[in-house]
């Protein structure tokens, strides 16, 4: 397929189909409604299913049902909609069901606004639902990367039998960029006969599979949590992703930033370079697992005097950055979350002011 010009939301929709996901349940909300709009005509073309639920709560349990039956399934929403789904996400984690959730974040709390935001970081990485549940969270910074992450998300969800979240700010969904898809579909789903409620006849089995998150026995519930914990630890070892940028030579300051915000930071870093000020960047591509070692090592580089967490929130990722730096250097936060994305000029001022204040 030749390159086409797509909105992030359209690319996310097409990528899911390319990944062999033919089941999509959703409820519209700005700024991600184009995913549903696109799939409303595209799913029938590939004999897939798009069903608009009566609410996000309904949608989230359609996801539970479809995932439990062993088919690839996904949904998309934006911040308030994800909050409504959080109960079912916890159930999916508890029942060990693979599914993909896309959150194209808008400003909050509450109804907030419709402009881009990154203020669901803590929700996605640490508080997505009740109980000890975690998602593998991926954060794209371009339309192409959003498409690639969606295609990667399905096999990862199946590898861990756990939901995966794509966390993009509103601009990732709304902006248009050229995007290329692989010609061949990668639809080979893993064998789900061991656990999915996909029919005893289909499996040639006489035992029922049971999908559940209810464990009334204390020991059994603890055992289930130990299984989940082992998976989350395995994610940290095997599936942490990040990008280092301008970190080959020495630098005075390190920025940690992701998504749209990281692209603003890159522009600022290039402009600072022209003035002789070197700044490195670590861009987490997975937010859980967080690239702890990469951030720690980049902060430890000789000459680096400060670490800046730049995010479209009131200071959320900065908690992870502080945890990684472990007090070795000062860690500062900068951000906005009304919808106005900080400009390259603001980041340049931030770097200069911070360096001169040390």
């Amino acid at each position, binding site marked *: 397929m030749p390159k086409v010009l797509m909105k992030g939301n359209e690319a996310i929709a097409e990528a899911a189909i390319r990944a062999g996901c033919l089941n999509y349940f959703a409820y519209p909300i700005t700024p991600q409604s184009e995913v549903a709009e696109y799939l409303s005509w595209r799913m029938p073309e590939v004999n897939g299913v798009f069903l608009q639920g009566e609410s996000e709560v309904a949608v989230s349990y359609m996801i539970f049902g479809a995932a439990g039956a062993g088919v690839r399934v996904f949904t998309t929403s934006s911040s308030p909609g994800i909050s409504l789904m959080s109960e079912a996400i916890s159930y999916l984690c508890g029942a060990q069901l693979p599914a993909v959730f896309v959150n194209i974040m808008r400003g909050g709390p509450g109804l907030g606004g*419709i402009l881009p935001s990154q203020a669901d970081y803590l929700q996605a990485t640490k508080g997505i639902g009740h109980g000890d549940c975690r998602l593998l969270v991926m954060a794209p910074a371009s339309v192409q990367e959003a498409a690639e992450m969606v295609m990667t998300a399905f096999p990862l969800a199946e590898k861990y039998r756990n939901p995966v979240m794509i966390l993009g700010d509103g601009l990732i969904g709304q902006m248009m960029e050229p995007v290329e898809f692989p010609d061949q579909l990668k639809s080979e789903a893993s064998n789900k006969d061991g656990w999915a409620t996909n029919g005893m006849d289909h499996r040639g089995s006489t035992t029922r599979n049971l999908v559940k998150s209810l464990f009334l026995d204390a020991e059994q519930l603890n055992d289930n949590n130990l299984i989940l914990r082992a998976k989350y630890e395995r994610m940290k070892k095997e599936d942490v992703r990040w990008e280092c940028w301008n970190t080959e030579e020495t630098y005075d300051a390190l920025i940690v930033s992701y998504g749209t915000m990281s692209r603003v930071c890159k522009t600022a870093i290039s402009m600072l370079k022209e003035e002789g000020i070197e700044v490195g960047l670590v861009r987490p591509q997975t937010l859980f697992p967080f690239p702890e070692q990469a951030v720690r090592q980049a902060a430890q580089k000789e000459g680096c005097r400060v670490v800046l967490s730049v995010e479209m929130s009131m200071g959320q990722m900065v908690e992870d950055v502080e945890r990684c730096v472990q007090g070795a250097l000062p860690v500062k936060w900068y951000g906005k979350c009304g919808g106005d994305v900080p400009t390259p000029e603001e980041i340049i001022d931030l770097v200069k002011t911070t360096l001169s204040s040390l």
Partner: protein
Amino acid sequence: MCAEIRLRGIVIIVGNYGSGKTEVAINLAVHQHGQGCRVRLADLDLVNPYFRTREARHVLAGRGIDIILPPQGFLQADLPILDPQVAGLIRQPGDLAILDAGGDAVGATVLAALGNAFQAALPSPQMLQVVNPFRPNTDTVERCLAMRRAIESAAQLKVTGWIGNAHMMDETTPVHIQQGYALMQTLAEVSGLPLVCMTADESLANRTKALRMSCPVLTIRRQLMPPWRKPAALSSIKKE
């Protein structure tokens, strides 16, 4: 030099999602203003939440282009607000009134609500459909015509001409414009409607001349940029 773009009366810009309507509307407004024409521009996008004409309101107002927007308190909303000023604009368009509608048929639906005002307008409104052949839904003549029918049906107005906006953002080359031009020529021929102009980003303007297109070429100075890029300067434009 090819023929000039000369638009007067009411010009409605329609097209599919992401075809570049707003960037074309803004640059058309600036171009026609540069030719000494009094231009008013109305943002009728009731469906798109980001990258709307309203984002360029300050730079346009600074150049003396009247811009009609929803009330300030609702500028950042995704609510279907149609300001009463728009009907007034249609009744008294002045030299040139450009109406930037939202994407696809759903975005053009707002035009049907203005039907009474359009019927009384003289000269009759022109409705120009912007096409970027590198967008998924308008990559063939058939799909462009299907989009036209859907928009006409929703808007209760007929498309009167085409604008070819062939680009791939920063990855655009003259080859893209050439391929787009070929499709637009076929579209004009099949539909019997004129190709009002092609577009080319200012960075490609010189290389586009070599394509010897027979229609006018509107130079695009991009205004709706992502936050890590600056909009192109409009201040250096002379009368073209």
